[in-house]
């Protein structure tokens, strides 16, 4: 049976794949009542799905593989940027044992990594805005710090401090993984009234010491501080004074 046999066959398929709106589907249903070719096509489509959607056919990344990917990304993190040769060496070191493909990736990185280090605050704000897209904010949704903190275990090579600031007016919403400054980081999500605050946490070291403690970028405020060997960046559209208050409360909280 070919699409040429009936010009509606690809529409039958589109309906099967949930691509038709109600009006199109209704028109097609009328046609199908009298078209044996389309009826046969519909049953074959159902048959292919039955053949293919079998447990085990979808190949998720195993936990081991996930860990190897994370390790690789961590190892490939560029070293502090100042002398260009050094961080290229860092790349080469990170790629050792990774194989041929890394050589290409490293070559690409030479071209692309440098400009991105000029603006960690740009990255932070971009990441925050990206996170505000529907469905991207939290990988773990919980107001309980004892749920959020363990969620990061095994997903990061450090344990981010997670504090609940509900009493101070910044309830915890959840957390997610993100990439910043060339490494996987923890992002904790807090709420202030209707505003969201992303708190990015990763171990100290690298480039961030040179950054000012506050900044504003595209209407978003950014506050930076360090505590317990971690570097912390809060990003939000709440006004600068409130974000500074958040940082103060966070440091005081247990």
């Amino acid at each position, binding site marked *: *049976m070919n*699409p040429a046999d009936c010009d509606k*066959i*690809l529409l039958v*398929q*589109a309906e099967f*794949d949930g*691509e038709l709106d109600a009006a199109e589907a209704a028109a097609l249903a009328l046609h199908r009542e009298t078209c044996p070719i389309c009826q046969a096509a519909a049953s*074959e*489509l159902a*048959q*292919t*799905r039955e*053949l*293919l*959607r*079998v*447990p*085990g*056919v*979808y*190949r*998720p*990344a*195993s*936990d*081991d*593989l*996930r860990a*190897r*990917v*994370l390790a*690789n*990304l961590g190892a*490939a993190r560029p070293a502090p940027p100042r002398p260009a040769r050094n961080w290229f060496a860092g790349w080469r070191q990170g790629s050792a044992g*990774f*194989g041929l*493909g*890394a050589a*290409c*990736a490293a070559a*690409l*990185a030479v071209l*692309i*990594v440098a400009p*991105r280090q000029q603006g960690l605050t*740009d*990255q932070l704000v*971009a990441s925050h805005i*990206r996170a505000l*897209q529907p469905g*991207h904010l939290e*990988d773990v949704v919980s107001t309980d710090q004892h749920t959020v903190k363990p969620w990061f275990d095994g*997903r990061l090579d450090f344990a981010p401090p997670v504090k609940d600031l509900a009493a101070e007016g910044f309830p915890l919403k959840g957390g*997610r*993984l993100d*990439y910043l400054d*060339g490494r*996987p980081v923890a992002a904790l999500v807090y709420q202030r009234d209707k505003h969201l605050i992303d708190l990015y946490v990763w171990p100290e070291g690298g480039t961030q010491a040179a950054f000012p403690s506050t900044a504003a970028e595209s209407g978003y405020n950014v506050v930076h501080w360090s505590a317990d060997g971690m570097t912390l960046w809060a990003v939000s559209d709440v006004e600068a004074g409130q974000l500074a208050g958040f940082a103060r409360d966070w440091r005081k909280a247990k």
Partner: protein
Amino acid sequence: MLPHLDAAHNLARWLMRDSAAAEDVLQEAMLRALTYFATFRGTNPRGWLLQIVRNTAYTSLKPQPESVPADAVEDELVSGEDDPEAALIHTEGRRRADRLIAALPVELRETLVLRELEELSYKEIAEITRAPIGTVMSRLWRARRMIVDAAAREAAA
């Protein structure tokens, strides 16, 4: 990007049809994604990552002839203790699905995998495979025809 690691691996696995090759592609794609991530401004990070996986896989597929590797389907059944997949009980249905998908030409295979396994919309598939939606629809149809025909042949044999 990590929430989409499963999708990235599934696509890599089905493009390469081999666990080890899929891991190489995945590792390289994730590294590229990390490199480009700061410049990503879109709203569909999964589609964006799958595009990178596809580009990476195609680069590494190029030198090889487009034929089913001997171990395309069975490799995971016998090898690789570090692969939890291998430890699973492999039902006949799953083996058959593996065979049927692996036998498709790559452009039909990727389209079918993105639709049937990843359950993406035509629009998303069109973006990832850089093909017009009409092409996605006809590729899907051809892929499904081949699946039904091959299954019928197997059943008759």
